């Protein structure tokens, strides 16, 4: 997989030079003159990282950071600063920067920082891939099975689910069997885990929790 290093700096000369150096590491480089420029031509792949000059006219700083977090949440953000004042660095890190580099940048530091950022990117991407796989499995469920899934992960017993959906306990058991087969899980606990990671149960009420983990279990 190709890794893209995105360099956003209004100084063309610096951008080019930095790009050349980064290319010698074997990465693909694309340069942008401003934050707006980058947002206008978002990359297809989120493999890589962004090197962003902290001081640019126009969109920059926290505003740009918010926009980037929405548009390319997986791309780690490394700030480039003229002089790394503590205040600027803290602000950047709080706002979600992965790292920052002080100009002029030594090759070794740059390499280290990029590597760290890419590792982070990879982790993020892996997590996302996993979720996407789970999402794909979930999308195989029929609407009826989906209803059953949502109720089961909330801790409803078969009898209760059957009552809720106005059908027989036996039918529910069959649905549950199919669901566990389609999702490739062996226990209800696994089902709950998936539901949680995909954001289907952001709110597990205490009584639900108690239903899953009765005393003595």
């Amino acid at each position: 997989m190709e890794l893209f290093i995105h360099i956003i700096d209004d100084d063309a000369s610096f951008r080019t030079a930095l790009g050349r150096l980064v290319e010698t590491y074997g990465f693909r480089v694309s340069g942008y003159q401003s934050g707006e420029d980058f947002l206008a031509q978002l990359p297809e792949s989120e493999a890589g990282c962004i090197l962003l000059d902290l001081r640019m006219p126009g969109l920059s700083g926290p505003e740009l950071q918010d926009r980037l977090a929405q548009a390319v949440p997986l791309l780690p953000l490394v700030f480039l600063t003229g002089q790394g004042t503590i205040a600027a660095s803290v602000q950047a890190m709080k706002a979600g920067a992965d790292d920052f580099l002080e100009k002029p940048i030594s090759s070794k530091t740059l390499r280290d920082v990029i590597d760290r950022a890419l590792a982070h990117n990879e982790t993020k991407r892996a997590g996302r891939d996993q979720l996407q796989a789970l999402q794909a499995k979930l999308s195989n469920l029929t609407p009826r099975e989906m209803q059953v899934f949502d109720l089961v992960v909330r801790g409803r017993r078969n009898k209760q689910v059957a009552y809720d959906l106005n059908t027989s306990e036996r039918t529910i058991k069959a649905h549950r069997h199919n669901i566990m087969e389609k999702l490739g899980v062996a226990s209800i606990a696994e089902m709950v885990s998936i539901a949680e990671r995909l954001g289907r149960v952001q709110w597990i009420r205490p009584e639900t929790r108690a239903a899953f983990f009765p005393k003595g279990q």
Partner: protein
Amino acid sequence: MPFDAPVRSRRRAQNAVRFLVAILIAIFLDGGSAAAEVVGRSPRVLLLHPYDERLPASSIAGENARNRLIEATSGNVDLFSEFLDLSRFPEEAHIDRMARYMAEKYVDHRPDVVIALGESATRFIVNNREAIAPDAKIVFCGFGRDSASKLNLPADVVGAFSEFDIAKTLELAHALQPDAKHLFIIGGSAAFDRTWLDSARTDLAVASKDYATTYLEGLAIDEFVERAARFPPDSIVLFLTILADSTGRNFLPKDALAIVAAKASAPIYGPYDTYVGQGVVGGNSVTFESLGNAVAGLALDALAGKPITDIEVPQTFFADARQLKRWGLSESSLPAETALSFREPTLWEQHGDLVVGVIAVVALQGLIITGLLIERRRRFAAEGESRLRLLELVHMNQSATAGALSASIAHELNQPLGAIRSNAEAAEAILRGTAPDLNIIQQILTDIREDDERAGNIILRLRGLLKKRSEIDWQEFDLNEIVDSALNILHAEAAKKQVAVSAEQSGRRLPVRADKVHLQQVILNLATNAIDAMVEAATADRKLVLHTTLHGDTKVEMSISDTGRGIPKDRLNSIFDAFYTTKPTGTGLGLSIARAIVETYGGKIWADNRVGGGAVFRFVLPLAEAT
């Protein structure tokens, strides 16, 4: 014109022709008594002249006496004059004839007072008193006590004596020539001359010790002249009288004086004021005027019935202005009260009022001109001083600006430096690889050189920002040039504060005459203010616009506008005052310095608020002639 009136005492005999010397036998009758106050008619006064009317001595003295009498009595006096003509008719027969004639003439008009002018007139009236004026009081003048004692005058005959003192003449000479070393005294061979020389030896015994003293006597007139021509310049020469020289040749003393003085190589002084005009510088004597005045005083007292006694006629110093000038002697060294003759009336005396007026006008004019010149010099000095102060202030201001912008400038410097480093490291990496692409290396090297230049320029700008002026470096340049250089300096700061800077420049050249560094400072002051004024605005709205344009036909205008809060209306004017600041770290001098600079170059600066919000600062400068 002959003259001989005041006569030295001790004189005995005389060749009587021209001098007031005559030998008569004194006879006199009773001294009887005094004329008393005249009642019921005007008092009668007889003026008795010894010679004819042309003789200056008696005529001057007589005229003065006459005037004094008329003046004192307010004209209420009967004056009679008789001229005895004794020089031309010295014989006894003439004297008797005159006595008889006058006795008869005045039979019904007996004089109350007789004024005898000179020795021979005195002798005549004393001898013929009974016949001519038996009840009259006799007063006289024109000779000294020594002569008087030889006349054996009656006790009631009272005189105004004139004494000659040659030492006083020397005193005047000493005042004029304090450094003189030599003293020459000239006297003739006649008996009268020798008498004069004898008395001079006595009178000058003390004073002459201060000088190398020489008595020139017993010489022929030619010898006198020859000696006179060889007087050392630091000499004082006293001319007594030469009635006759050693060859027996006769002279009027003043004529002899004129001959000697013409050749003399040193100033000559003499004891007679009649010597004035003949080559004498000055001297001391009794003047005929004072003689007349004095004797008239005695006559008036006698008419008033007051007791009268002998008096001394005061002596006066006299001098000849032409001779003072000839010998280069100073008028101011003369003793006080010196009668100065032949003094050319000065311009002052002739046209005093006009001179006063002209001098006053000229002086006033001079005063005004001097005043103006002084004022001008002061102004120049003050201007120079204030200009120096301004230059110092501007430099302080430049330093402050450089300080404030230093962080931004350092950041800006990091761009080329960072690029150079990255490029170099990239090149190294490329060269380490197999089959390095030399085209890229070439490109990298070109970029490195360009970035190096860029870094150099930034440092150059910083130095320009700190450039100190000891005097204004006048140049003619395009205002747009300065806007560009200011933009370069501000670029980083504006980026840091996230302010978008734009310039709307006139397409035309806008030549102005000023110091580039100073105008750049004005723009920097206004622009940094503008940037600071926008910290509270949303980043997207922070806009700084620099605008230049032609203002009329003769001026250029520059405006700097921001999108900040603007300026409170009541502060629009005071904003340019020194120490006005809204920034906690500001000195409050930026705008006042900007104004001082703009005004130095003949411009004007003012502030305003924009319709859409924010402030705009404008200044105009004269357009330089050439385009």
